[in-house]
């Protein structure tokens, strides 16, 4: 593989890792607070739809983003209602929300646009434009570093940079602020938080709201950054891969970055090469497709370092039986 190709693959890794990263951090906030979220997929999907739909109707990608975020946060709220307020099963709620998003997006898309469950293709203004970072052109001729800066680092849409900035931000919030301390505590021992005079419910709703926000960004990036419009089921399992990355990352922000980049790379490679020939032995593309899932199972099995989830994860906080 020559340098240019390598750059191309890495470039596409960055693009493909971005929605994963946003969703993964979304899951991180939620699960760190003790609310398991297998509904990342659904939230991304609904955000993708609304950001594309509103962007198509108004021509403004920013309005699209806003409505994507709002819609994802609404789904988050529903998840909160089920799993925090009514102390239902968080897994079941997540499954239900994924279906809800899968159905509603097509239903509404069909009702609004009659294009078989997709939105019209977005034009300029309805999509995130690529940003050219300062000096990109100037530095381009510099050997090695120039192309890296020009091809790999510059030239993405703003959400990509936002996503990557979210990593240190998440770390800082989690480990350097009061909110972070409480958030981590509520996912480990909600009764300790409660008896310390802090509302478990409010904390968890806050976490879930952040989760919705980040899923909104992820969805918006999918439909209006990576693509130019919404198509049915366009998240295509990314929510689950994000979940897998979260486990891979042991619920930590920096690890999440590496996990998402790894899974992004796997996707980039699988996209680019149908079957990979390793001299006499061919890796079928289906194997590459399945690799993130296989890796997750291996991690879960504890063969590569054990992932210990937040202790109170998945359990509703019940004081009175």
């Amino acid at each position, binding site marked *: 593989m020559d340098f*240019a*190709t390598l*750059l*191309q693959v890495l*470039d*596409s890794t960055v*693009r*493909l890792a971005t929605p994963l990263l946003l969703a993964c951090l979304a899951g991180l906030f939620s699960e760190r607070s003790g609310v398991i979220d297998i509904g990342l997929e659904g939230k991304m999907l609904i955000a993708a739809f609304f950001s594309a739909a509103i962007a198509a109707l108004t021509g403004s990608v920013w309005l699209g983003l806003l409505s994507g975020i709002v819609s994802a946060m609404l789904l988050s709220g529903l998840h909160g209602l089920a799993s925090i307020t009514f102390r239902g099963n968080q897994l079941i709620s997540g499954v239900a929300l994924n279906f809800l998003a899968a159905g509603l997006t097509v239903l509404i898309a069909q009702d609004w646009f*009659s*294009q*078989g*469950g*997709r939105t019209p*293709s977005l034009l300029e203004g309805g999509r995130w434009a690529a940003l050219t970072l300062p000096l990109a052109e100037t530095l381009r001729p510099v050997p090695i570093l120039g192309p890296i800066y020009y091809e790999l680092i510059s030239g993405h849409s703003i959400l990509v940079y936002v996503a990557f900035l979210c990593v240190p931000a998440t770390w800082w919030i989690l480990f350097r602020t009061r909110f972070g301390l409480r958030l981590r505590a509520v996912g480990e021992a909600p009764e300790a938080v409660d008896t310390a005079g802090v509302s478990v419910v409010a904390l968890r709703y806050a976490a879930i709201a952040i989760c919705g926000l980040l899923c909104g960004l992820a969805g918006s990036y*999918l439909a209006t950054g*990576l*693509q*130019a*419009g919404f*198509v*049915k089921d*366009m998240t*295509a399992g990314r929510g689950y891969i994000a979940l897998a990355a979260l486990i891979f990352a042991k619920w930590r922000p920096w690890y999440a970055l590496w996990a998402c980049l790894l899974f992004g790379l796997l996707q*980039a490679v699988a*996209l*680019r090469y*149908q079957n990979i020939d390793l001299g006499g032995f061919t890796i079928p*593309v*289906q194997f590459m497709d399945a690799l993130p899932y296989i890796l997750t199972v291996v991690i879960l099995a504890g063969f590569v370092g054990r992932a210990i989830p937040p202790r109170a994860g998945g359990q509703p906080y019940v004081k009175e039986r």
Partner: protein
Amino acid sequence: DPALIYDLGGKFDKSFNEAAFNGAERWAEETGGSYRDIELQSEAQREQALRRFAENGFNPIITTGFSMSTPISNVAGDYPDTKFVTIDGFVDPEEFPNVKSILFAEHQGSYLVGMMAAMASETGTVSFVGGMDIPLIRTFACGYAQGAKAVNSDIEVIANMTGTTPAAWNDPVKGSELTQAQISQGSDVVFAAAGGTGIGVLQTAADEGILSIGVDSNQNYLHPGQVLTSMLKRVDVAVYDAMTAGEDLETGVSTLTLEDNGVGYALDENNEELVSEEMKTAVDQAREEIIAGNTEVHDYREDDSCPVLDF
């Protein structure tokens, strides 16, 4: 009344199914007739839709996509008075006399756009993004490569397929990534024969400033001035003709070729700047040659191989 069943890609795929829809609309407009249509969403629905339409007296029942041929052969015997049409599919006419199979000479049309691609290319590399990896799509790719090589025997033709399952018809993200990869390999004209996936291909080509070639429908309007042309597959004509013939539709197998304008390339105000006189002359001449039988375009399906391209 006639009925129309779209394949999983959906009515508005801007390509194959949409061409069928356009044909039906034209028929409805011109004759004032009405028809019923449905977009399939699941495998089990295929037979069900055929049966329900047949039971309710719709005739003929027109279907798009090769996946419908198996269900049609399951159903056709039960409704001998109903005529079924499978576009892109093949059902044995001996066994089921009430079925019409419509096929296209995709290799011929692809040959023409391949020539145009080679003439438009400045880098000497052109590329192809296919949908699902099936012989039909390989036929497109092979025709395209033959056309390109006919213009410039040194030209590099890159061909990639999106996937091996029907999901490959609807994966614009992957289409876009494949296009990026091809651009990095030097391609400056990309031909997408990939259904909904092609939207992503054309989009990326436009974003990255290279030329693209649409498929099935006229897709020139999607990115005016950036789509070199579209390889037309006149599904709309097939549907229009079938609807017009109505219950008297002649069954059997027919293949639509360059000769009967079943395939071709699109020229309109959106790409007139891009298609030079010289290009047009060359392509039209090649068309005549093919029709006349002087130029032989190899059909991949004949022997599952392509003389100028490895898959």
